[in-house]
């Protein structure tokens, strides 16, 4: 039985889709079978970020409505053979995403894959609650910025009340993925520090993804950042986050804190 992970945040634009694709590709490169499912019905983008936008024939809603078999809708990645994508539909009414339908699809995926990564839409509406409903583990993607932290706090509340796990009285495992972290600004005191966000949200840290051009560059060419340039700083951070997700006790290095005395001086000047 595979593990179901929801990548969620409340706020839009913080990096849910980027992180879903990057973590999915990182896990799949170790030979594990991974499917990344786009729950953003109406505004799908995971296909574009993963470079499969021209290969989408059937989507999640087609499968739920019985118009296509699950195997027909799964798109296999051309670079990593154990990585699959299930796209969201683009034009349909999002009411087509039913609770029973989602439950069936997730159950089927769980039995066929090691990891089922659900890329949640922004907001706290139906799509977001359905994406988190069947999760075993939640990754809360947060930017070190007030509105993102506030929305993450709301999402944590929902994870603890509106999921199957919560309703069964179990504890939902939650991890914080801090994205777009800028060590220079944090050090200058103009960006919330890692410890500030951790103290406020009080969930364990899965990783810190530094703000980087490499993320944009990877999405431009339709490749998860862990495939596009696996030696770049964000890719390394995602690879490490993926290892922690598998249970490895790997300490999280805060970007910028290991810089030398001279590095700090020149880093500040450059900013």
């Amino acid at each position, binding site marked *: 039985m595979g593990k179901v992970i929801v990548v969620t945040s409340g706020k839009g634009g913080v990096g849910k889709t980027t992180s879903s694709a990057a973590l999915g590709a990182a896990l799949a490169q170790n030979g594990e079978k991974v499917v990344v499912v786009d729950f953003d019905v109406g505004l799908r983008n995971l296909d574009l970020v993963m470079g499969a936008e021209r290969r989408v024939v059937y989507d999640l809603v087609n499968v739920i409505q019985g118009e296509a078999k699950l195997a027909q809708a799964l798109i296999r990645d051309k670079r990593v053979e154990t990585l699959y994508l299930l796209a969201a539909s683009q034009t349909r009414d999002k009411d087509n995403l039913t609770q029973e339908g989602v439950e069936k699809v997730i159950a089927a995926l769980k039995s066929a894959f090691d990891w089922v990564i659900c890329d949640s839409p922004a907001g706290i509406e139906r799509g977001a609650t359905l994406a988190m409903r069947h999760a075993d583990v939640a990754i809360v993607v947060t930017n070190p*910025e*007030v509105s993102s*932290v*506030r929305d993450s*706090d*709301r999402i944590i*509340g929902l994870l603890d*009340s509106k999921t199957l796990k919560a309703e069964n009285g179990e504890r939902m495992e939650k991890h914080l993925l801090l994205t777009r972290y800028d060590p220079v600004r*944090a050090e*200058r*005191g*103009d*960006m*919330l*520090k890692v410890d*500030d966000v951790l103290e*406020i949200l*009080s969930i364990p840290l899965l990783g810190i993804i530094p703000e980087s051009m490499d993320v944009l560059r990877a999405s431009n060419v339709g490749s998860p950042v862990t495939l596009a340039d696996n030696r770049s700083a964000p890719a390394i951070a995602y690879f490490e986050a993926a290892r922690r997700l598998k249970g490895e006790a790997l300490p999280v290095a805060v970007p910028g804190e290991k810089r030398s005395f001279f590095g700090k001086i020149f880093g500040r000047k450059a900013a």
Partner: protein
Amino acid sequence: MNFRRLFSRSQSAPAARDRLQVLLAHERATVGGSDLVTKLREEILRVIAKHVQIDDEKVTVKMERGAKVSTLAVDIEIPFDAGKKAA
């Protein structure tokens, strides 16, 4: 002078942290666990009202989430002559 401005400008991150802490303590009590807090409030009120007369408006029930434990704070104002009225 740009140089002086750079040094005199105060950091903004501490303000962000403080504002969030105050806001979220409030929101967690009102929005987050609203169902539970509302239920608790009603039941606590019912029990207290059996013995003393209390004003609905003068009761606050707050739930705060922490890393390991959550705390429930109940604050009820009981008027001086409440016991007599209820009896």
